[in-house]
């Protein structure tokens, strides 16, 4: 056989070997998924998948085959719409920065034409405070932080009634999460824990398993700021950097039966953006605070 032909055959064989190896690796990525049973409720899994929360990737993973994990740690929501303050509506810009590890949220609202036009309300775990500017109070001379400890629960609740918070908390509640069908829709009922112990969440999923309605009820009915009703609709990937995480395009929230927010979402940064919530020293050291109302404003 001519050397040229032998060389060609060798090269083709080598190329085929590499291709075979690549194909085998690709098959390895997908082969075992159907063989394993989900360990948790199908409804919770479906709700998490509908939002795009559970993800895996085999890029550069070799033979490793990791399960799907919840990838929603931090997020930013930019919206505009109507914000109600003591029942009075205002057209406003709304910007929420949030984190689930550790649980924290910063809500910046700019009301058009309102006297109290710009507020920044922040919570992290056991601390709540109001910032005069983003990050105020962390560095001398760079804004102030005013402790607002009585608002901890109401502010944390805003984190856990978002669709992602609902799914996370329902999974975390384990056997305490009950699943029922009401008018053909799946309904999740579960208790919150930690600072929000005593609050029960009822969440309704739509036909695509997306969280469409969330109601919270505190054991203590006097805590009206913890009694909320929120409706979510118009889900899409609203990111500038696309993530395949779906977020609601329209959010309508009532608190204590009264309207609180009616927001059209403009953009959601769901790519776990850099968001931090260090507690200002004066907030950490605060032992007594001036009384604040349910929204944390003096």
């Amino acid at each position, binding site marked *: 056989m001519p050397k040229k032909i032998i060389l060609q055959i060798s090269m083709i064989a080598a190329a085929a070997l590499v291709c075979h190896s690549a194909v085998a690796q690709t098959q390895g990525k997908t082969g075992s998924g159907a063989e394993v049973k989900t360990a948790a409720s199908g409804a919770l899994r479906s709700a*998490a998948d509908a939002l795009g929360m559970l993800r895996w990737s085999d890029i550069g993973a070799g033979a490793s085959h990791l*399960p799907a994990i919840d990838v929603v740690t931090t997020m930013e929501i930019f919206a505009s719409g109507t914000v109600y303050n003591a029942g009075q509506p205002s057209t406003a810009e709304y910007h929420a920065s949030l984190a689930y590890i550790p649980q924290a949220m910063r809500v910046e609202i700019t009301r058009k034409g309102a006297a109290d036009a710009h507020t920044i309300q922040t919570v992290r775990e056991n601390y709540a405070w109001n910032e005069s500017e983003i990050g105020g109070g962390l560095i001398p001379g760079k804004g102030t932080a005013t402790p607002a400890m009585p608002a901890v629960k109401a502010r944390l609740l805003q984190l856990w009634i978002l669709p992602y918070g609902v799914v996370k908390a329902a999974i975390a509640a384990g056997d305490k999460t009950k699943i029922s069908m009401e008018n053909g829709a799946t309904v999740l009922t579960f208790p919150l824990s930690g600072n929000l112990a005593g609050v029960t969440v009822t969440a309704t999923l739509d036909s695509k398993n997306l969280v469409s309605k969330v109601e919270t009820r505190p054991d203590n009915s006097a805590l009206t700021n913890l009694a909320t009703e929120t409706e979510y609709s118009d889900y899409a990937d609203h990111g500038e950097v696309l993530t395949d995480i779906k977020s609601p395009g329209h959010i309508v929230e009532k608190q204590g039966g009264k309207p609180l927010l009616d927001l059209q979402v403009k953009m959601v940064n769901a790519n776990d953006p850099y968001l931090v919530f260090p507690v200002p020293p004066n907030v950490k050291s605060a032992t007594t605070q001036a009384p604040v109302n349910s929204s944390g404003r003096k």
Partner: protein
Amino acid sequence: MRFYRQTLIAAAALLCLLPAAARAQEFSALKRNVNAPPKPSGATPRTPDGHPDLTGVWNGLGDNLLGVPNQMANDGISVDSETSSHDIATGTQIATFPRNTTHGLNNEQAERAASLLRRVGSNRPVYKPQYWDMVKEFDQNANEEDPSNNCMPAGIPRAGIPSYIAQYPSYFIFIYPGQGGLIATQTMYRMIPADGRKHTPLEDLDGTYTGEAIAHWEGDTLVVDTWGFNSSTWFDQIGGYFHSENMHVTERFHRDGNTLTWTATVEDPDVLLEPWTTTPRVALLNPKPDAMLPESLPCSERDLTHTVTKEHH
């Protein structure tokens, strides 16, 4: 004749891919559904002066940064089983489910998922508030902004654990081959004295990518203290974590059997609110007595001008 030319081109392309394929095969030898580093095995060898001997090729599982499982570990996420994961810094449990599909991900799905998976961990440096938006913008626009995407050296501590360490009584040699991916870029080396000398005053140093490093032993832990950096690098594999020329990095290397654990603490009072320490990373010793480092491919950026989205690593 045309077929012959095509075959030669295919063969040339194949040869170009061989080093990477060989490395991928080496790293893929370990099959696992968790990303925790393996437990150390074997004795820790010591040099005649009594210190642990760090000499060797440390390119085993744990810090190659080539794969999503290791990048997640570096980011502080421990996948413990098919149904359990946690955030290492806080201990927070993370919802974990077995995969539920037999369909593979296409490239777009896999890249978007990988970008998220690399960012789940909560161990993030805390910058001064005036820099929060800048970090976020750098990360969001990493395709253009990340120095490594432009073939610049990774710098310290982004380079992580060196793939090769040579230990001598009064100095060390660290080699970091260019690996592509998130640390990418240029091959780097460091010659690090361990002879008791003091740092050059910072104001007398011209900032460099690897800075002025001096090593000493604290018990069985090698401590490498470095300053004198330029400000042209980011200090972690993702996140847009820029730094100033006043960055001071303290790396700690601890050998236990066939594993090497590394952490780095970054102090930069110009931009950080507080010092930040990486999640510990673990590399395995390459057990082959004739282990070598493959030659790195030259870094030549040709993709950026064709990028049409902000999606990125």
